[in-house]
């Protein structure tokens, strides 16, 4: 970690960790991702690539019992409606986030630089439980995970477009191989995002004071934030 990115505020003061745009887009994205994954699982169930079905109770998209009563299907139609509504929320919010990240310098400050050496160093430190938490500064492992999940997000939108329009966007579908491989990529991308979320949420549980910061944007500087290095 470079000295320039280290918070220079004295202990006891409050600093802004997350800009307002990042906080708003974070929570809108959380809602959109939740709907996309939940409804995606139900859509998957109607024709799974692998012999695995997601329990209907953890899927999103209307009341399956009502769908069963009304038209003899377990809610695929409504899950599709949720999926293709939340996609607008996801994409518009994503465009705002990426534009802000690129134009404001947020990406440059928060996610770069990240070198393989730093990743290895921080990963080893984390495994020995000796990776300190620096308020408002991401360690190299975090940076890698955030950059990785953003890249997966882009792949999810592209593979999603290829599945939605394998005809009109046939070049895009061809980029993934064909319709079936685009579906596979879309599924694997979802799996990667779910794995990321498991780590992401686990870390919030381990360091709970990061949660209110994601709402207020601000955090109090502790003594140990300063000394750990």
């Amino acid at each position, binding site marked *: 970690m470079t000295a320039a*990115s280290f918070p220079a505020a004295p202990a006891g003061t409050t600093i802004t*960790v997350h*800009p307002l745009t990042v906080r708003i887009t974070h*929570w809108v994205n959380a809602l959109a991702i939740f709907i996309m994954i939940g409804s995606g699982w139900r859509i998957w169930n109607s024709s799974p690539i692998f012999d695995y079905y997601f329990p209907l109770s953890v899927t999103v*998209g209307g009341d399956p019992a009502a769908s069963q009563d009304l038209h003899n299907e377990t809610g695929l139609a409504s899950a599709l409606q949720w999926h293709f509504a939340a996609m607008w929320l996801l994409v518009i919010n994503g465009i705002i986030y990426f534009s802000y990240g690129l134009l404001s310098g947020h990406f440059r400050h928060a996610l770069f630089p990240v070198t393989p050496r730093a990743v290895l160093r921080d990963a080893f430190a984390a495994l020995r439980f000796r990776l300190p938490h620096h308020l408002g500064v991401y360690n190299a492992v975090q940076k890698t995970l955030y950059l990785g999940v953003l890249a997966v997000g882009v792949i999810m939108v592209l593979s999603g477009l290829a599945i*939605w*329009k394998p005809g009109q966007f046939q070049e895009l579908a061809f980029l993934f191989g064909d*319709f079936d491989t685009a579906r596979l990529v879309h599924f694997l991308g979802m799996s990667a995002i779910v794995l990321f979320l498991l780590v992401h949420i686990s870390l919030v549980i381990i360091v709970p004071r990061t949660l209110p910061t994601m709402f207020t944007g601000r955090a109090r500087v502790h003594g140990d934030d300063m000394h750990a290095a």
Partner: protein
Amino acid sequence: MRPKATTGMLRNSEAARLVERRAFLRGGLSLGALTLLTGCDVTHTDEVQAVLDRVSRWNDRVQAALFNPRRLMPTYSEAEAVKDFRYNAYFGEDKVPKIDGGTYKLILSGLVESRRPWTLSELYSLPQVSQITRHVCVEGWSMIGKWTGVPFRAFLERIGADLTAKYVGFECADGYYSSIDMASALHPQTLMTFKISDEILAPKYGYPLKLRIPTKLGFKNPKWITAMYVTNRFPGGFWEDRGYNWFAGV
């Protein structure tokens, strides 16, 4: 991230507190929404359903704008075409309509000059083409097949259909019904098909007449067609009225 120089000053102002509270409330609302969404009753209220239906209509318009009437869907080689195509309907194979080709008549109505019904032999006498395309199901599976029939555009021109009308609707022997936009109906790969895998459609594949429209999802390819009409009034469809997106373009 570097601390902002103004933070200390803003922290004490009333405005900053309001912003903070609002941000917290907003976060709380989305968290609340997350927990509510898993409940079945919330996602199926009339209000929520009305919003979803409106978004689906919006998606119809977006897809109509994305639709390129000259863009051909990918075609495949004979070797890639599945010979034993999957049977698919909302009922079991034992309930497949059995239609007598000898007495069959295709009923025409709506905005067409000639509403005279067509017999099967009259339909067979029209020039036919074959194509090998991918059938994409709304459920996610897909299958490449070979279909043979009359380009739908040629038939619509033949019967003097109003090609400026908005929709073409279909009614089927099994009670199924569907409709497509005129632009997709006129697409060069849209066929009134009589054959699959070089053989006359078996009853389970829609004998005697199926619409093969590779620019749309499978459920927009009605089988056992007995009547078709041209209209400016939105006709809907069997699955479309049950929540599937109407345009359903691929």
